[in-house]
């Protein structure tokens, strides 16, 4: 008995960080997803000149919790002809794959579950693609035409864009030279430039492909409500439905994190190696104060807006937001200011600085990426399925293959002239321009070769 206890203790000691990270993620992620949905609804409302959810809590802030409670106590309907076991299993599989993919991601230098696995990014891409099994099985199990077509569409869509996304990742990996997440970010620090700037075409291809892979508008054909009711989720209700929802938004966070890690510098601040206004004694740069300054500005804005709020509750709400911003600013500023006040504590504060600021920048970038997803969703109309397939197979795949070759040539030219870091742009920008010209050429070819559909031609009922 004692040996078992001791072994457990040792195990806990060795794997303390990943275990804590795992518990935190599983416990907090559903809440985060709920608030991402709320933010999305608020942004949608703002873009459409409405207010959005306002009833539950101040400014609808408790809406996600109300939704969760509603979904928990909703009647659970399983269709008579459904395959009960698969119907039960499918959403679990979907959400499991999405959550498991997070294990490979690193939010900061220390906050990672699978530390030191050497296939990092491949693990994330592979596991998150497994979520499609949940969607296909769910669509098949519910025995509804809409569900099955939605599921098939989803799988065809994922399959079509997976290749282009993989090629885009290869472009980034050419610069990184490793699959390990930490090493990829370290490579971007060593070279002093984000890989998204070196390979903008690859970043663009990944952006489009990741929207398609997560089944988001304008590529949300699998759940197109005007054609398929709700696609593969049609027969799901209550908490099963919310598991699918959770999987979709978690996938969004995963693809955003992959793009952030590989193309946007992970947890590094902008211009990671550039020092413009550095205080020599502490090594702190102007950019290290930027997060705190940002928070102070947002807080001050909220404070200035407080008297203009019509209702007392809203005034208090604005005050609370301002207070939270100032608190965040204090947390962000503390590890930067301490070395000035007490140089002896500089070494002790260093990991704290990396953790807090790394997390801040990572979440900022992921947030911006997801905001872009939402912006696209509310701006563009939905594609038709044959247009979606054509975009994938006729445009993105050839473009990404050619881009890999062009980046390879650019790297050889760069090494020939000993170009490093920002100077490598001299070689990669012409490569990107050539890739863009080729892209325009492909588009022109597409426009010419597009078959003119006769009016009244029978539509493909199974597309």
């Amino acid at each position: 008995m004692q040996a078992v206890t001791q072994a457990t203790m040792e195990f806990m000691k060795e794997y303390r960080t990943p275990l804590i990270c795992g518990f935190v993620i599983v416990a907090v992620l559903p809440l985060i997803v709920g608030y991402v949905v709320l933010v999305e609804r608020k942004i949608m409302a703002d873009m459409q000149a409405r207010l959005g959810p306002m009833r539950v809590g101040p400014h609808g802030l408790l809406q996600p919790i109300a939704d969760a409670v509603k979904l928990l106590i909703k009647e659970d309907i399983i269709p008579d002809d459904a395959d009960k076991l698969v119907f039960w299993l499918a959403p679990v599989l979907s959400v499991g794959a999405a959550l498991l993919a997070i294990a490979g991601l690193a939010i900061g230098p220390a906050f990672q579950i699978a530390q030191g696995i050497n296939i990092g990014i491949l693990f994330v891409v592979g596991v998150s693609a497994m979520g499609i099994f949940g969607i296909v099985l769910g669509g098949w199990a519910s025995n509804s035409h809409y569900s099955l077509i939605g599921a098939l569409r989803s799988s065809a869509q994922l399959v079509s864009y997976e290749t282009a996304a993989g090629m885009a990742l290869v472009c980034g990996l050419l610069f990184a030279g490793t699959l390990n997440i930490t090493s990829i970010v370290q490579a971007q620090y060593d070279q002093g430039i984000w890989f998204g700037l070196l390979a903008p075409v690859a970043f663009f291809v990944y952006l489009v492909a990741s929207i398609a892979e997560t089944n988001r508008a304008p590529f949300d054909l699998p759940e197109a409500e005007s054609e398929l009711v709700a696609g593969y989720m049609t027969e799901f209700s209550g908490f099963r439905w919310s598991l699918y929802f959770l999987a979709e938004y978690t996938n969004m966070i995963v693809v955003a994190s992959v793009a952030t890690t590989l193309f946007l510098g992970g947890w590094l601040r902008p211009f990671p190696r550039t020092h413009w206004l550095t205080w020599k004694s502490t090594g702190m740069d102007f950019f290290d104060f930027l997060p705190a300054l940002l928070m102070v500005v947002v807080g001050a804005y909220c404070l200035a807006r407080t008297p203009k709020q019509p209702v007392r509750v809203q005034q208090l709400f604005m005050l609370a937001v301002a207070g939270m911003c100032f608190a965040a600013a204090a947390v962000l500023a503390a590890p930067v200011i301490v070395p000035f006040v007490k140089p002896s504590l500089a070494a002790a504060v260093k990991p704290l600085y990396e953790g807090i600021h790394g997390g801040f920048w990572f979440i900022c970038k992921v947030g911006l990426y997801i905001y872009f997803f939402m912006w696209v969703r509310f701006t563009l109309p939905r594609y038709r399925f044959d247009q979606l397939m054509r975009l994938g197979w006729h445009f993105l795949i050839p473009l990404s293959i050619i881009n890999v070759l062009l980046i390879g040539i650019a790297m050889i030219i760069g090494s020939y002239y000993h170009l490093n870091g920002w100077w490598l742009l001299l070689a990669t920008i012409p490569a990107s321009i050539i890739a863009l010209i080729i892209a325009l050429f492909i588009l022109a070819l597409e426009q010419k070769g597009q078959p003119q559909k006769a009016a009244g031609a029978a539509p493909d009922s199974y597309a």
Partner: protein
Amino acid sequence: MPKAYLPVLIYAVLVMAFPAVTLVFAKLLRPDSTSYGPKLQPYECGIAPEGHARGRYSVRFYIIAMLFVVFDVETMFLFPWAILYRGWVMAHLGLFALISMFVFLGILLIGYVWLYKKGALEWA
């Protein structure tokens, strides 16, 4: 190296437990379903569903799946090449690595052009 995957395994158990536990929790919390009859039929916009859903569907999905295998395996072959490429470039052996990948991608691009001409990449 397998030791590095131990946290992933534990996390996987945690992740699989989360939906299972919440589903059971929801089952305990919600009232029992008393639905019967048409409510338990698959939804088809209010009319009675036409036949069984698990019938035949478009063969194009099958073609797409086959093409995916080819192109995704190609991407998988590119991953190890991409990792080693930087080192080769640094050692000024980049041209050799690039040309070998040119040949590999060239063969696939020929196949791609053939598929394009055959119309296998067209949906409608």
